């Protein structure tokens, strides 16, 4: 008996007997220019507006003030313990420790139960998407493995202004190489939400219920 793989591929080939052009690209042209920016007057302003539209708390800060803002936002959220990825900015780490918040490292890896007992996580990001209010993590060392930004109930993420792009096409173009290198991605648009009961939106189901965003900008020269 033929194995399932060969039989399915055989069925597919038989089903496609009408396709004569062997080159997919020549066979079906795709009229689309990939990676194009979407025109908008103020990309950073739109990013902030859209993140807020998704009920995220957004603060704009000059690069030099980010560490202080990290500590201030965590305090405001009533956080007493935090997990920090190994590659996080040393200045931010110091500011968190100085604020009297208990810092956990993920080395060795924390168990699920340990993560569940921690209030918050602070990370950097890979890309911000203005038009959709989305933050993309590629889980590099300054963002940590995926579970860190999932189990604690508060996620504070710092997005650099030069990471923010207009819309999804530009974002995908920036992320292609990370995916090709095998990095997982997490796209986050606001806190976890559901509309499953009567289409009524509820913020906060399984993922972090509080999303805090700092947009870090270089001060004008």
């Amino acid at each position, binding site marked *: 008996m033929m194995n399932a793989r060969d039989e399915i591929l055989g069925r597919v080939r038989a089903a496609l007997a009408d396709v004569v052009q062997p080159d997919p690209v020549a066979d079906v042209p795709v009229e689309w220019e990939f990676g194009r920016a979407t025109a908008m007057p103020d990309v950073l302003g739109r990013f902030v507006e859209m993140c807020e539209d998704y009920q995220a708390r957004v603060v704009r800060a000059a690069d030099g003030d980010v560490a202080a803002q990290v500590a201030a936002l965590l305090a405001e959220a009533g956080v007493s313990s935090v997990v920090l990825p190994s590659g996080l900015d040393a200045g931010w780490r110091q500011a968190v420790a100085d604020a009297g918040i208990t810092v956990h490292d993920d080395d060795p890896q924390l168990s699920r139960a340990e993560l569940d007992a921690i209030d918050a996580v602070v990370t950097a990001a890979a890309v911000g998407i203005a038009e959709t209010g989305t933050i993309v993590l590629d889980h590099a060392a300054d963002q940590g493995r995926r579970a860190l930004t999932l189990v604690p109930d508060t996620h504070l993420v710092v997005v650099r202004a030069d990471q923010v792009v207009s819309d999804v096409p530009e974002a995908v173009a920036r992320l292609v190489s990370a995916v090709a290198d095998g990095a997982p991605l997490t*796209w986050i648009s606001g806190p976890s939400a559901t509309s*499953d009961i009567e289409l009524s939106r509820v913020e906060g189901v399984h993922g972090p219920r509080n999303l805090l965003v700092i947009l870090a900008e270089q001060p004008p020269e």
Partner: protein
Amino acid sequence: MTEQAQRRTPAPPPGTYLGMPTFQKNAKVQLADPQLRSNLRHATGTIRAKRAERVAEVPEWEQLRLAGEAIKNRTLRHLDTYLVQLEESLTKAGATVHWARDAAEANAIVVGLVQAKGVDEVVKVKSMATQEIELNEALEHAGIAAWETDLAELIVQLGHDRPSHILVPAIHRNRAEVREIFLREMKQYGTPAPEDITDSPAELAGAARRHLREKFLRAKVAVSGANFAIAETGTLVVVESEGNGRMCLTLPETLISVVGIEKVLPTVEDLEVFMRLLPRSSTGERMNPYTSVWTGVTPGDGPQEVHVVLVDNGRTNALADPQGRPALRCIRCSACLNICPVYERVGGHAYGSVYPGPIGAVLNPQLRGISSKIDQSLPYASSLCGACFDVCPVRIPIPDMLVHLRHEVAEHKRGHVGVQQTAMAVAGWVLSDHKHFELAERAAGLAARALPNTTHLGPLPWPASPWTRARDLPMPPAESFRTWWRKERGEAR
């Protein structure tokens, strides 16, 4: 002990999809439920308005639809090439690829993988493919509990119910019903709902969070589907809202993803088209709250054992019919359900499948064939108004396909002489000669004179009953135009 008592998870309602009567019979039952119609009207109206608003924000929406259609056509017309490439990429990324010809084979593979891990429960991300193959029941028969973790799927599972919508499977339930279900069932399967819980959606979602958290924290194996599978890199994508997907895809040690073979996309770049089309078409959001993208095994992050089961289960049947092939472009957004005047009134249960609405009416007869009553009736579950094509993000010509499938069903039934064929044969005789026609007119006129005070004819006996069940006929005139003409002008022919 009865089988009922030995179950690990709530039992679904009795009966099978394929054993269901015709759509039209099921629709009658559903239409008699005013609560259901009210729930559906509210939900589909809300989501339609949201979608329209979000689509209007994108000036190049029509070009995006064309691009989505073209990318999917390219993939489907060269599916063998892309499947082989996907398998290679996945294997290189540390995943194990399995192939399943049908539902039974897919279920056997998953059951075997779970048993090999020595566990008796799995957590599940909402997945149409696993519903299609009825994986949960296959796992249950093997003594493995499959816990649905999407809120709506949890409502359906705990409610001993079936999903009625692709995106919001519990759309037929209102908040009061959800509260009843949670209060009654949660305590039997884990963390109970608080006794004083109200019917506020926030409190109900909170109960689901607490109920499922213990399951997420202890689960060793997760089962998912995938919205997209990228051939070039072996990357899978799951689009979701609640974070239950992230929990399942990240925390367990083993991940099994069941993916229909039509889910392939050629490249990562293609995501820019679909990640704009899908959220706006499905939930009416600019972007869904969470999207997970992963490529096989990531060392030190997430499941370290990753399986992908590629499932045919009738897809190659659809592929083999060039007129049916476009149905495989479907990205399961459910915009066609929400816009459909038929779906809005009868809901999803009448369609006898996990794929209801217009897309279900074309997909099910192709995936399952047209030998069952339900699948023969589905191409007629439409008024052919065309709204489903207008909202489809990948431009599936559902109305054209419904007509095509009606033809297929008619051909299939040839040999059974029905009322319509009899009526057409009579009409053929009447219209073939003017003497026949005049004879028929005179007969109708005599009938009219026999009922002098009647203006409309209501239900008539067989063979006219199928036509007059839903229509009143005006009374034929006592005198035909031809008779009147002859009398007035005195011109005999």
